[in-house]
């Protein structure tokens, strides 16, 4: 296939272009519930400067975010909030589970602490540590960017994996309180 192109025209696959746009503008949703949140703030601050990876725009509205960073332990009472925020985020969305507590429950092996948020929402990157270093979180974001570039598709086919679907079903089976406008 030989197409004559002028020198100033660059050809790319739509998938690659979409992935390139997505991976370089990951807007994080800081779900910081514990001490990992402090390291998350340190990562965003000037010393480590997450802006170098295009991920400095911490949005506190889930509708503007596409990367959820769960930093800190999530208790059963907080879980509906976590799931609602995750559902409110727009596709495509990714999740980083930061720290021992968010990933597995850590030392809090009790009835009220969620033993790993990946039981309830799909997690793309796990960051061990208690809390992890800012460099470790930066590494996770770089690995996630790499994952997006390699596996992402423009129509989000990679989100239809059986494992992801299983998690989605778990999300839908949630007893979400329906507000019917009457205020009760």
């Amino acid at each position, binding site marked *: 296939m030989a197409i004559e192109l002028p020198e100033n025209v660059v050809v790319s696959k739509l998938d690659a272009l979409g992935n390139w746009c997505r991976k370089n503008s990951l807007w994080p949703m800081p779900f910081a519930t514990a001490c990992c949140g402090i390291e998350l703030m340190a990562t965003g601050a*000037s*010393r*480590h*400067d997450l802006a*170098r990876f295009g991920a400095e725009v911490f949005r506190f509205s889930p509708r503007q975010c596409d990367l959820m960073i769960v930093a800190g332990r999530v208790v059963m009472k907080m879980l509906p909030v976590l799931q609602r925020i995750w559902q409110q985020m727009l596709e495509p969305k990714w999740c980083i589970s930061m720290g*021992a507590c968010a*990933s*597995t*429950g*850590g*030392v809090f*092996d009790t009835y009220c602490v969620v033993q*790993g948020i*990946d039981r309830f929402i799909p997690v*793309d*990157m*796990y*960051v*061990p*540590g*208690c809390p992890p*270093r*800012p*460099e*470790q979180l*930066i*590494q*996770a974001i*770089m*690995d996630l960017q790499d*994952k997006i570039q390699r596996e992402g598709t423009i129509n989000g086919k990679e989100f239809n994996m059986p494992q992801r679907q299983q998690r989605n079903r778990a999300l839908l089976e949630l007893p979400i309180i329906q507000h019917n406008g009457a205020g009760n």
Partner: protein
Amino acid sequence: MQANDPDILWVEEPKLGLAGKLYLPLIAQGLTTTTRHLFSKKITVSYPDTEPEIANPLIYRGVHRLNRDEQGRVKCVACFLCATACPAHCIDIIGTESPWPDREKYPESFTIDELRCIYCGMCEEACPVDAIELTSLYNLTGRTREEMVFDKEKLLSVHDQTIDKEPMRSQGGATSQGGFP
């Protein structure tokens, strides 16, 4: 509280002079601050290019390793002291009878859940034969929970990776002197 209460102190907005109305001195003031920061020392650490300085790698608590003895065997004697000391219960050991004459037990399987671990270093302190140690590898991340559960081979490979940079904390240990007391 009433508006005419004598305790209320009414403050008038200060009147802007010519300099304030022009805004130019204020813009200059702001730009001075910006320019000063432009030429001041940069504090950002460009992480993937420059590694962070770890002051003493020997006391840094990063990813674990399982040490080998002089013959390349795993040093661990499966005494379960680290698993007992672990506050997060992330160490899982299956001990079995040792095939070597210098000790009674050795770990058939030794797994550490790196995600559950809180890197406190209690296992390292508890170990009587200096078999488990924490290295200065700090940037571990994973994509699945399964790959973050390090088994014996993985922990030994961490040892092979780091032993040149970080020697064992204490040479010898009980096994090399022939037998766990």
